[in-house]
């Protein structure tokens, strides 16, 4: 635990690369945290500054080009004392972020762990390239990675994780350290989790509802993003065709005396109108990214639900096992055979056991029952703990989601209004030119 790595200071969100919307968001997030828990951000600024291309050999010993991202950190106290030292920095590539996240997923299964931005560009409209090397994509990924780190740093539990801290501060040897924790062995197999999901009898109702909700959210947000991309495509077409007016008005003005000037200027406005769509759609991509983050969050929600099902299932299995052992003991004591067992059948067929044999068996069973009761108690505690801690985090997540998405929707509405205002401006200007013809 690294809770005491520096003097307590007032929190500063030092990253100027965030948009004002994200800044507000982070302020709000941090506000909540300060009231209740300590937050890593109280102690240090974190930012993902740049991206660079590197070449190297990959796992199958082939040359590859990959992108690395610069992570910069600076203790908060350094700034407030009036001196602004250069931040510490190191480079990380996307796969290392993935490793960090996987480690956190396994180590804190009750936490809804923030998702990473897309590895590959999906759900794009035609103008935007699906190429991972495209500078716009890389830039949006940089923003996404920074957002990821800030979400972790704000989280009351995750922010104290040592591996996370070292990810931010020490470039070399971090990977080895992660593997050394042995987290991979602790990971539940997908198969095991699936099995539990099918066979669990009494999962907590809230988790069932949550799973259902996350499925719905995933479906609806995917659909939304797909249709939005198509709408963007069409909008692009409408704006760009108006550029043709620019050209023809210019040509036409050449053969006119009176109308020439008016037509020429109007043509310029049409060109400006056509060109304006590029910025408009770039801004909308930011909105799409905000939605995408929550689309990917649904996977984290489902992971927590799966973990609950698994612990609940294991508890049920342990209880079932205990019940069966108790049953067997009872039968042995009373001599009745209610449950089917091979031993029982064989003893029926081949004769009764001796008193000593029975006594020995009884002792084994009693031992097993004792162990079983311990196991059930343990599993019960585990399950209760899990449900308790998970639900706190889920409530926290819900509040965050409501805040973030409400703001995203309002920003989106603002974007639409801004686009319309620009439209009114351009056409009003064009109209003035026409009036002067």
């Amino acid at each position, binding site marked *: 635990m690294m809770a005491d790595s520096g003097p307590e200071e*007032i*929190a*500063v*969100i030092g990253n100027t690369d965030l948009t004002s919307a994200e800044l*507000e968001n982070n*302020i*709000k997030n*941090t*506000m909540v945290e*300060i009231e209740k828990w300590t937050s890593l951000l109280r102690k240090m600024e974190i930012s993902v500054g740049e991206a660079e291309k590197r070449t190297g050999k990959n796992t199958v010993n082939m040359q590859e080009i990959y992108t690395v991202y610069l992570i910069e950190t600076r203790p908060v106290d350094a700034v407030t004392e009036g001196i602004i030292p250069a931040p510490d920095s190191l480079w990380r590539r996307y796969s290392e972020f993935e490793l960090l996240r996987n480690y956190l997923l396994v180590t804190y299964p009750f936490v809804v762990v923030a998702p990473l931005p897309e590895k590959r560009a999906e759900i794009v409209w035609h103008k935007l390239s699906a190429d991972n090397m495209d500078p716009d994509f890389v830039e949006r990924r940089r923003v996404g990675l920074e957002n990821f780190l800030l979400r972790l740093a704000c989280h009351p539990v995750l922010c104290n994780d040592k591996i996370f801290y070292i990810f931010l501060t020490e470039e070399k040897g971090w990977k080895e350290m992660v593997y050394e924790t042995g987290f991979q062995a602790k990971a539940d197999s997908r198969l095991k989790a699936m099995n539990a999901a099918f066979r669990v009898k009494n999962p907590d109702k809230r988790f069932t509802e949550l799973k259902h*909700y996350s499925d719905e*959210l995933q479906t*609806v*947000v995917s*659909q*939304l993003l797909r*249709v*939005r991309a*198509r*709408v963007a*495509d*069409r*909008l692009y*077409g*409408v704006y760009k*065709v*108006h550029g*043709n*007016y620019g050209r*023809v008005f210019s*040509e*036409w003005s050449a*053969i006119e005396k*009176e*109308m020439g000037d*008016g037509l020429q200027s*109007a043509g310029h406005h049409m060109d400006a109108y056509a060109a304006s769509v590029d910025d408009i759609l770039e801004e909308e991509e930011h909105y799409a990214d905000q939605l995408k983050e929550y689309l990917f969050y649904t996977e984290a929600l489902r992971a927590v639900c799966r973990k609950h099902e698994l612990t609940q299932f294991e508890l049920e299995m342990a209880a079932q096992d205990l019940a069966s052992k108790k049953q067997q003991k009872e039968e042995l004591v009373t001599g009745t055979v209610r449950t089917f067992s091979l031993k029982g059948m064989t003893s029926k067929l081949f004769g009764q056991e001796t008193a000593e044999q029975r006594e020995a068996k009884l002792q084994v069973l009693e031992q097993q029952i004792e162990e079983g009761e311990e196991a059930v108690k343990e599993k019960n505690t585990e399950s209760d703990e899990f449900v308790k801690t998970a639900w706190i985090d889920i409530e926290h997540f819900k509040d965050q989601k*409501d*805040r973030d*998405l*409400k*703001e995203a*929707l*309002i920003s*989106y*509405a*603002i974007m*639409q*209004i801004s686009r*319309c*205002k620009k*439209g*009114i401006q351009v*056409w*009003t200007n*064009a*109209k003035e030119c*026409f*009036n002067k*013809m």
Partner: protein
Amino acid sequence: MSACTPKSLASSGQKPIQEMCHPLGAEEAVLTPSPDVRNITSSIGEKDQILPNGTPVETSSPSSSSSLLNRLQLDDDLDGETRDLFVTVDDPKKHVSTMETYITYRVVTKTTRVEFDLPEYTVRRRYQDFDWLRTKLEDSQPTHLIPPLPEKFVMKGVVDRFSEEFVETRRKALDKFLKRVADHPVLSFNEHLNSFLSAKDLNKRQGLALLSKMGESVKYVTGGYKLRGRPVEFSAMGDYLDMFTQKLGTIDRIAQRIIKEQSEYLAELKEYGPVYTTWAASEAELQGPLEGVASCMANCSIALDELTQDMSGDFLPVLREYVLYIESMKAVLKKRDNVQAEYEAKLEAAALRKEERPTVPTDVEKCQDRVECFNADLKSDWDQWQNNKTQDFRQLLTGMADHNIQYYEKVTAGDYWLMLSYVHLIQVVVQGAKGSVSY
């Protein structure tokens, strides 16, 4: 002719032009969102538009908007001369008889001219009658440019001759035709126009008119004379018309393409809004904003649909009609060429026979007169045509700009509603955040 005192337009009980609210101005005043919240909420979603001073603007119905536009046009056309002949084509009605079904239009004339017996006339005419008028004008004024009529034939299966849209488009074109004729310094005094505007029943004598048309056109078109020296100014006119036709064709194609792209955008938009509604169903806190965005999208769809309709209805037909106008003009230029060619040929023939007759024969003189008249008429018509063209296109293009402005204003009005509902929430949170965090 009965002596009648010239009466002003106000006798009809309508407001004089100056007091009429500029139709475009009125709409702008309503749709721009004002800083006062109450005004916005009262005017959004209401079909009836209220002017800032509280009087209602006539809701756009075909007859009222056209009459407003008519008055607007008259305003523009005042060249300092006192106009004394006003015509309007409106009120289309369907007539069903055993023989056929057809549409008639009401033609209203107001005039102070002495050539007319009464100051006001109201008659009903059908397309055939307009066609007759045009033919008579062409025959009796061959040296002048006669404005074009809308297309005569429509493919029966493809276009519905009785649909509101088609009838309205045609009515506007017929109105324009008659106004252009009434504006013409020579054509407006034509006796056939007088009959058309005033007679109870047009005694058309269709058959004779057809024959005479044939006769005249044969004379001018199949002259078979070769033109030697066309004056530069008329060549320039021909060149200009060719280039202008080309540009109009391009603009038509662009406008059609925009309408197509907008339709496709609309189709996607119609799918987009409902997804937000679906999402809202599984949310609590977010339900409000999500429903808000959904309704904004719906609002946008409606506005976009209206824009597309307006452009199809107002913009494209006028553009196409101008192409017809250019064809008419080209035909007149050709006629002029033929008249000149005929004159040149006769002059040459006369020069060869000079020995026989010392004086220039009278028919050659007549030809020369004809050429000079034609050239003079054509030049003055050309100037007027150019003038009208500038006004017409100014009106057309500002109309296009207005439609787009209205579209964006409608969408903004919808979004403002969402914003007003939720923006105060952000302000509250930001205040709170700013208060406790120092930079």
